[in-house]
């Protein structure tokens, strides 16, 4: 499965975490501020009631000392002193006719069991303002009614102001939290994306890449360091594996070389005196050469896989190369009655090693001819577009079953049916190694019937 691309801010787990946190935090702040508001409002209400009670107490004392007249006088005096205050007084006779106070009529709202009442109020001269008053009513010994209260307008306005402020506060908090969260997520996402980007490079084949660290020894850095250590191990192991067959071939090539030299010596000497011996020596030489061909191919593949040849890349004209390979193999195909169908489109130059590419394509075409029956149709196509170019060799032979398609690219793999045909099982391994060196994808598919091998070269990066 191909590695996932960077998913951006909104799919980040960190961001979701931030959203949850912002939500919870906003609720907490909301609850806190709500509590503050409730306490404040309650206190302010309490204050109002206390003020009313204090007034009442004062008036009560006066009433006790100076009876009704004293009360009226007291009320008038207070109103005169403070004509624009918020305190409301109303003294009425038993028939609710006004005697004194700054209220022009008894409220029609019933009071509660303790004598508290709230009613709408209008200030004369200030229309369209909905005031409310809170007051306490009494019935005096003489049947007179007394109402003492406060205009709640300012209180209510203040309370609303506080409420609005607190709500705005919660919103601002939420927004700031969100903003801060996005910034933090961004930084986290960036660090994780750095790890992901490096991983993608590594999976593409560059095992020398390492994840960058910031030197802060925080958890991301620790993660990066651990991953880098793992990569060091993997790189060592992979090189070790590569080196095994490389080492074997390397260690055996000298004895094999000497063996061949001696056989050739033997062949030369015996050709003078003994034809039978000469023949046998020649046969032995052929076997030695076959072994050497295999070793040579193994060592070549190892060196190609090591990527050393990339330094010697030059611009390669693929359509000339394909044409040359086809033309080289045409007589061989004709001898088997096979038909080579070639389609070559003009394509851009590719950076690569022309001899290696020639070898890879030759191996593919050689296989196609070898494994296809007489009179079969073999197709070679070179196509290109803006994303790159591709070479495909398609035969109508027995093909390769899907289950084996991955295996055949490995060294020495030969399918059961082809064990009798000449070959050492390294042809496709070399093609795979050359493809990888050039950054090309190799794909084996069913040509129904037959095998189609396609090499996809990426467009050159400018």
């Amino acid at each position: 499965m191909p590695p996932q691309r960077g998913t951006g801010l909104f799919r980040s787990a960190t961001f979701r975490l931030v959203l949850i946190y912002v939500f919870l935090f906003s609720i907490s702040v909301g609850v806190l501020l709500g509590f503050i508001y409730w306490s404040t409002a309650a206190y302010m209400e309490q204050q109002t009631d206390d003020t009313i009670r204090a007034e009442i107490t004062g008036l009560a004392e006066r009433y006790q000392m100076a009876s009704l007249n004293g009360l009226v006088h007291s009320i008038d005096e207070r109103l005169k002193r403070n004509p624009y205050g918020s305190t409301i007084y109303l003294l009425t006779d038993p028939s609710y006719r006004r005697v004194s106070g700054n209220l022009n009529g008894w409220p029609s709202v019933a009071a509660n069991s303790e004598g508290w009442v709230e009613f709408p109020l209008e200030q004369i001269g200030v229309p369209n303002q909905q005031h409310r008053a809170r007051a306490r009513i009494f019935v005096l010994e003489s049947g007179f009614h007394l109402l003492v209260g406060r205009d709640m307008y300012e209180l209510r306005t203040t309370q609303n102001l506080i409420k609005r402020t607190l709500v705005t506060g919660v919103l601002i908090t939420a927004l700031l939290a969100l903003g801060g969260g996005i910034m933090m997520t961004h930084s986290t996402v960036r660090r994780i994306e750095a790890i992901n980007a490096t991983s993608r490079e590594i999976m593409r084949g560059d095992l020398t890449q390492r994840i960058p660290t910031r030197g802060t020894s925080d958890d991301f850095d620790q993660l990066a360091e651990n991953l880098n250590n793992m990569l060091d191990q993997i790189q060592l192991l992979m090189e070790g594996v590569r080196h095994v067959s490389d080492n074997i071939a390397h260690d055996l090539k000298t004895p094999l070389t000497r063996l061949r030299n001696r056989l050739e010596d033997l062949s030369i000497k015996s050709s003078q005196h003994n034809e039978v011996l000469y023949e046998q020596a020649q046969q032995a030489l052929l076997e030695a050469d076959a072994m050497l061909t295999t070793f040579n191919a193994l060592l070549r593949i190892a060196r190609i896989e090591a990527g050393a040849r990339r330094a010697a890349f030059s611009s390669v004209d693929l359509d000339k190369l394909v044409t040359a390979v086809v033309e080289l193999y045409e007589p061989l195909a004709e001898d088997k009655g096979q038909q080579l169908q070639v389609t070559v489109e003009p394509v851009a130059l590719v950076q690569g090693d022309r001899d290696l590419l020639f070898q890879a394509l030759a191996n593919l075409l050689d296989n196609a001819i070898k494994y296809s029956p007489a009179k079969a149709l073999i197709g070679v196509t070179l196509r290109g577009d803006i994303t790159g170019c591709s070479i495909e060799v398609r035969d109508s032979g027995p093909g390769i079953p899907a289950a084996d398609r991955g295996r055949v690219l490995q060294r020495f793999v030969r399918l059961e049916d082809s064990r009798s045909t000449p070959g050492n099982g390294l042809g496709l391994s070399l093609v795979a190694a050359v493809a990888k060196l050039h950054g090309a994808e190799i794909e084996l598919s069913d040509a129904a019937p037959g095998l189609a091998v396609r090499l996809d070269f990426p467009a050159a990066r400018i």
Partner: protein
Amino acid sequence: MSHEIISPDDSTRTTAGPQGGPAVFDSGDAPEQPGTQQKMKILVIEDDAQTRHYLCKGLREAGHVVDSAADGDDGLHQALESQHDLAVIDRMLPGKDGLTIIQSMRKAAITTPVLILSALGDVDDRVDGLRAGGDDYLVKPFAFAELNARIDALTRRRESELPATVLEVADLKMDLLKRHVSRSGQTIRLQPREFKLLEFLMRHEGQVVTRTMLLEGVWEYHFDPQTNVIDVHISRLRAKVDKDFQLPLIHTIRGAGYCLANEI
């Protein structure tokens, strides 16, 4: 079908000259044929003792004078000190490596042709070797016939560097300007690649040309074919050039390659 020449005993002799008739297994010298090597002074720089002895012995038996060195420093010293007609230098050497020696030689304006020997598996590095100033590249182990063919080609190349417009071997005529081939006056139609192939053979008249040399010279790519695809091309060419004529010109040299020559 093909005219197979059983080369005389010693395949260290390049003279895979056509003898005709049954195989001859005598140890006498092969008769001098046109295009055989003259006696040359050859420098061999190779650290592996067995390979060095093998090389020196073979070359001496072919009649050449051979100087040898077992490490890079001694080799470079000898290369600079005395004149040689050819140098055979191994890439991997103790002391100075082969490519460094070649570069030093070229800097000292020594134009001796150099055949580079390289280790098994290093065939893809031939470009580096040729860029360093080498003239040809051979992977160990090699058949002596291949070595001989290449030495021949290297040293003969120097003689015939005059541009020719017409190549002739016996009654076969190739006009390079008109791109026309005829034999005994009869026009032979060749496809472009067949023309190039014949031209290469004619330019190496009398010399053994190995399959690898043909691939490099005619197709200009270096690769190892898994099947004898070159042989098929040669047999096509033979069908056009030799079949209808009395005198076969294209000969197969067993264990080595091909040779285009007049039969004597």
